[in-house]
């Protein structure tokens, strides 16, 4: 199961048939396991990693440090879940250190993001403070280099 996950995490386009061959398993068995993984939300979604900048799209991303007052019984969860509901929010993580939640949001421009932070995020009960960091450039994401100079330089034929 772990190997199936590793293969799909590296290339989600591979079908059950290919995965089965690569692991020396039966195709039906792999198909069943993948279905199970999807049902149990271990595999959540299949998607493409896009370099939007190269695609000519003017998206703005920001990472927002959010300090939160934890609440009785639910800790940080209630506030985190509230933040998650906004579609602008790409990811929310509880972190250790000087702040509590690391929130990534995406917008059309800086004004839209500032607006979101000021009117939606900072005003949530339990949010103590926010600090907004605009993303200037992505070098690497999900283990993939955005501009990779390490292309295949091998000789076409060698003994």
């Amino acid at each position, binding site marked *: 199961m772990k190997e199936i996950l590793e293969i799909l995490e590296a290339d989600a386009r591979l079908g059950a048939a290919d995965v089965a061959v690569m692991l020396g398993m039966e195709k039906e068995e792999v198909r069943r396991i993948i279905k199970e993984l999807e049902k149990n939300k271990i595999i959540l979604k299949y998607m493409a990693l896009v370099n939007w900048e190269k695609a000519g799209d003017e998206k703005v991303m920001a990472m927002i440090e959010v300090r939160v007052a934890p609440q009785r019984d639910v800790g940080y969860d209630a506030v985190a879940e509230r933040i998650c509901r906004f579609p602008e929010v790409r990811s929310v993580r509880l972190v250790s250190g000087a702040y509590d939640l690391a929130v990534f949001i995406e917008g059309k421009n800086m004004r839209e993001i500032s607006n979101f932070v000021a009117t939606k995020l900072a005003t949530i009960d339990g949010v103590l403070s926010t600090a907004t960091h605009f993303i200037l450039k992505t070098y690497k994401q999900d283990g993939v280099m955005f501009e990779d100079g390490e292309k295949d330089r*091998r000789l076409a034929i060698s003994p």
Partner: protein
Amino acid sequence: MKSWNAYVNPLVSSLPSSGIRKFFDLVTETEGVISLGVGEPDFITPWHIREACIYSLEKGYTMYTSNHGLLELRQAIAAELEAACGVVYNPKNEILVTVGVSEGLDLAVRALVCPGDEVLIPEPSYVSYAPCVLLAGGKVVTVPTTMDEAFRITPGKIEAAVTPRTKMIILCYPNNPTGAVMDRRTLLEIAEVVKARDLLVISDEIYSRLTYRGEHTCLAALPGMRERTVLLNGFSKAYAMTGWRIGYAAGNPDFIAAMTKIHQYAMLCAPITAQMAALEALKNGRLAVTQMVQQYNRRRLLVIHAFRDMGLPCFEPGGAFYAFPQIAGTGLSSEEFAEQLLREEKVAVVPGNAFGASGEGFVRCSYAASVEDLTEAFRRMARFVQARGVRPGIISGPRAFAGEQRPVAGEATG
């Protein structure tokens, strides 16, 4: 214009030129080729190794080392050989760091083969063995292996080829170009013949870490074989370090001393930069190797499956990163197959006869390529093969025919 060829040493001019060379020119002239003809990993040397090398340069490690190589590296190699193969070498006088296995091979042959000595070379074989022997004045005696025997040399064939002048046999398992691996039992039987006939062995085990079926058996670890064997290994394949040119030889102190004598005059020492990188590879490279081996193994299974689907007989390669399918059923020779496949479908493979006459009827396909490239290459190759048709009648059936025996994922012994 005066031809200077007459001045070239006849021994050199008479060396056959590499069969790969001609094909290489053809491939580089063609655009958009997916090459499965590459004999090196598609991975780049793991970053921690490159980083350690850069750091060594920053610290000023730019000088000669001992002829034998850095003692710390030889100690690490000795520890590795003991852990992985169960054979103990003294790092002080039984290990020599060489400029790749290529140099180690040349040194061992030159140090041990006298003019007129016969050297047994199982075929299909890596391209360097025969020329090295010829340059040393030795006589090459090729011993063909077949797909029916899973490209393993048999004790009987060795026995049959031995004459009073036979000095040595050069073994390479896991094998380039066939991907064949040796089982321990056959190796033990071979060792008996070698001892009975008082032969030496050069054992090129550069692909040892890339073993997917069973466990690699180091020839030197077998009873009575340590003293008779020059063990060659290196960093090129397991650690994706081909361009660093770094390897090593291990053997009895007399052989290593003789090889070191040539090495000290011809090479002085292996580059310190590569030695520093090799040291880092041995210290911290385990995880990277395991991950690469796992990737190769998955592709290997894809490749066997692809040939089975195409109807090309292909014995299951247990090591290295090559498959050696039989293409004779298409009615084409190895060279015709490779040339037409390149022209029509822009996929490069190496004609099997580049590895000796017994490679005729086969092609070598390297699966050191991305799954994406492999998939596309096999889609094209299937189209090519289908257009020609495969006539099973005129080909021999391999014992481990991929179509009948389901390959298993195997324990990757990274």
